[in-house]
């Protein structure tokens, strides 16, 4: 659950006090005949998007003279005299929130998918700010570091050296950090109320704040970053829209751009895990998005796909248990498709944002079960074939048991290393808010310098594709294991399958264990 705080203090140009949030936008799907359809404002478009994301708790902040047009549209804003009052209200809301808090400008036009990424995907992070490419307009510069954190943020007073992106304002503050953020908002309000503490030295020509010197959102981002809170820079997808508007023309252009973008394609692209193994990337994810769309079209849940994948693996084990050549080949093909569905369930979950704890557990448990059931199938098949004088000549149960032990112990090394005790990463040092200059101007590369030898070597070679894939393949990830089982079973016999799994798995175990021990000692 999330509380959305919408700051509608931006003004549309013109003699009358009209909030930029009340600027009309074309209704969905309408092109050209906007005069016929019921009018819709930027703000009501944004609220509709929040409805669809299940964000029911909303507060609206505006200026007293901007409130009547908003009330006329059926909104219920809180009136704040100036930016300091905005910040006091944000502080009060964040302090009382029992959930994470999303801060949005009221005059924001944002693609559904981009908003979903901020509201849903960033909920577990301490804090997240959407960043866009630097094109000017109603946004403030930020500098993101190599780790994707906001290292510095700008406002009418605060400068950023070597900015890498712009922030149009949207922020998501995680549940654990709302009290800290409330303190930051209070500090900022106090400074604004102190004459001369934050002189707005560089009010931009297209100031997002309208008549005010500052915008509450730009100050919040600066405040959080300078308080040392880790703020993730969530780079907007280039083909999606996230920008603030002030005029009907801008609003129309932004909404049209948002509707033009193929969000389904963006989502599908993001659904494929970026750090998969070589086999999963090239032999499965190259075509599995087709299946993802098919499954989504049929309304299948990820868990059903997981179960189907487990069913296919059981079928493969059954064919392997037959022990004949045709059985081995059939089993190998079926096992490949079991792996394809194994990738599809995760991709479908990300594509449809149907995450569940049960789903994650089922997926992982069945992954292991699929492999070990096939081990048993291969061993049964070898015995059956030996009886019938077929392909195999031996009892391979010992090899199957050895493969199970090796794989389980390798996994336990992975899990334990992942959950090893580490001191929590400290927040960045705080920097004063009353200094205009970028406090971290020279500290951009300090993270890389402090890393251990292994990590530096690992980072240095990560850019070379051959090395990158070699390092992935050598650890025998799940895709490679499934491929090895299918190929060796189809072309050779169960003894070959287990021999390859054991030799390769042993090398993989030694390789990753060495790296991890060194990382743990020096990291």
């Amino acid at each position, binding site marked *: 659950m999330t509380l959305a705080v919408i700051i509608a203090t931006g003004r549309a140009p013109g003699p009358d006090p009209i909030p930029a949030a009340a600027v009309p936008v074309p209704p969905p799907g309408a092109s050209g005949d906007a005069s016929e359809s019921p009018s819709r404002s930027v703000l009501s478009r944004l609220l509709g998007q929040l409805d669809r994301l299940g964000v029911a708790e909303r507060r609206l902040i505006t200026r007293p003279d901007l409130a009547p047009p908003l009330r006329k549209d059926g909104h219920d804003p809180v009136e704040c005299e100036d930016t300091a009052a905005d910040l006091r209200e944000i502080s009060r809301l964040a302090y009382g929130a029992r959930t994470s808090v999303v801060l949005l400008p009221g005059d924001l036009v944002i693609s559904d998918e981009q908003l979903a990424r901020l509201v849903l995907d960033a909920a577990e992070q301490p804090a997240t700010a959407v960043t866009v490419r630097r094109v000017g307009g109603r946004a403030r510069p930020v500098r993101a570091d190599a780790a994707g954190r906001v290292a510095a943020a700008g406002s009418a007073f605060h400068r950023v050296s070597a900015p890498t992106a712009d922030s149009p304002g949207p922020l998501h503050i995680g549940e654990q950090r709302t009290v800290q953020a409330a303190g930051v908002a209070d500090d900022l309000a106090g400074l604004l109320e102190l004459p001369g503490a934050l002189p707005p030295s560089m009010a931009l020509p297209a100031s997002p704040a309208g008549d005010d010197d500052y915008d509450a959102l730009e100050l919040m981002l600066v405040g959080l970053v300078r308080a040392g809170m880790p703020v993730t820079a969530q780079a907007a997808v280039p083909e999606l829209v996230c920008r603030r508007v002030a005029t009907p023309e801008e609003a129309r252009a932004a909404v049209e751009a948002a509707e033009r973008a193929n969000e389904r394609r963006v989502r599908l692209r993001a659904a494929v895990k970026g750090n998969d193994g070589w086999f999963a990337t090239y032999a499965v994810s190259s075509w599995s998005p087709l299946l993802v769309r098919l499954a989504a079209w049929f309304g299948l849940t990820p868990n*059903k796909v997981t179960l189907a994948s487990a069913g296919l693996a059981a079928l493969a084990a059954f064919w392997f248990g037959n022990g004949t050549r045709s059985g081995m080949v059939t089993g190998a093909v079926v096992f490949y498709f079991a792996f394809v569905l194994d990738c599809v369930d995760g991709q479908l979950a990300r594509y449809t944002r149907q995450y569940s704890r049960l789903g994650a557990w089922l997926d992982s448990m069945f992954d292991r079960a699929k492999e070990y059931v096939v081990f048993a199938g291969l061993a049964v098949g070898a015995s059956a074939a030996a009886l019938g004088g077929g392909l195999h000549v031996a009892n391979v149960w010992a090899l199957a048991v050895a493969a199970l032990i090796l794989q389980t112990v390798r996994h336990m090394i992975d899990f334990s290393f992942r959950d090893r005790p580490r001191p929590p990463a400290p927040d960045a040092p705080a920097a004063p808010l009353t200094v205009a200059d970028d406090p971290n101007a020279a500290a951009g590369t300090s993270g890389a310098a402090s890393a251990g030898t292994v990590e530096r070597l690992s980072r240095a070679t990560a850019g070379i594709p051959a090395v990158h894939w070699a390092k992935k393949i050598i650890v025998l990830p799940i895709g490679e294991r499934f491929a090895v089982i299918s190929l060796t079973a189809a072309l050779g016999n169960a003894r070959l399958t287990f021999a390859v799994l054991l030799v390769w798995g042993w090398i993989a175990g030694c390789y990753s264990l060495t790296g991890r021990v060194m990382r743990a000692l020096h990291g």
Partner: protein
Amino acid sequence: MTATDPPAEAPKTTTPSAGTALPDATARPTATYQAGRPFAPGTPITGTARLRAYRDDGPICVALGTLPRGHLPPLPGALVALAVSAVLLATGVGEQHSLALFAPVAVLLLTGLASGHAHTGRLDWLVPPTIRAIEYGYLAVLGFAQSVPAPLIFVLLGVLAFHHYDTVYRTRQGFWPADWLFPAGLGWEGRMLVVALFGLSGFLPFAYAALAAYLGVLFACESVLSWTWLVRGGGVMDDLEEEGT
């Protein structure tokens, strides 16, 4: 949209992690032992409850672990135990009264005493996989040497693997197995001792079958029932999507 004031109350406290399922999980981390470069003094090192759950200690091991009050580092003992059990298994495992049958006692003394340690050393994450290697390796080698039917060995190890993966994947979802599950599963030391005792008396296949049946029913039922309970809304978490499977 409503502008009613949300209650502005006292600051909320951060939710404590669910890592309280193990006895002694809150034992004071000892800063005396660190392999490699020590962490800076005073750094809070948290989150070893899961690492300790991965050990899968049984009641005997836990009881032994209370004796040194968590001051004994776990890694050296575990590595020695791995070497000792390998040697004992290598020295003729076939005869019924071989030395290998006493390996569980040696391993228990070497690793059990340190089970109360907070596992805060830099390399203490090596302990759970070491224990797994000892346990699985012992069950497999002893079983094959004393001609337990191979599929039975595979099934027993599969049941144990289910439990150990389940522990990892469930705690990863912030959902801990019930406290009683670890003692009820006998722990790694309990299972090794049972097998060794039956090995002495010559009923090893029976022991494997009984263990596989008992543990299989125990682990599978506990897991399925607690997930069912959680999905039906009995759990404390409210962020679970209902997917009905």
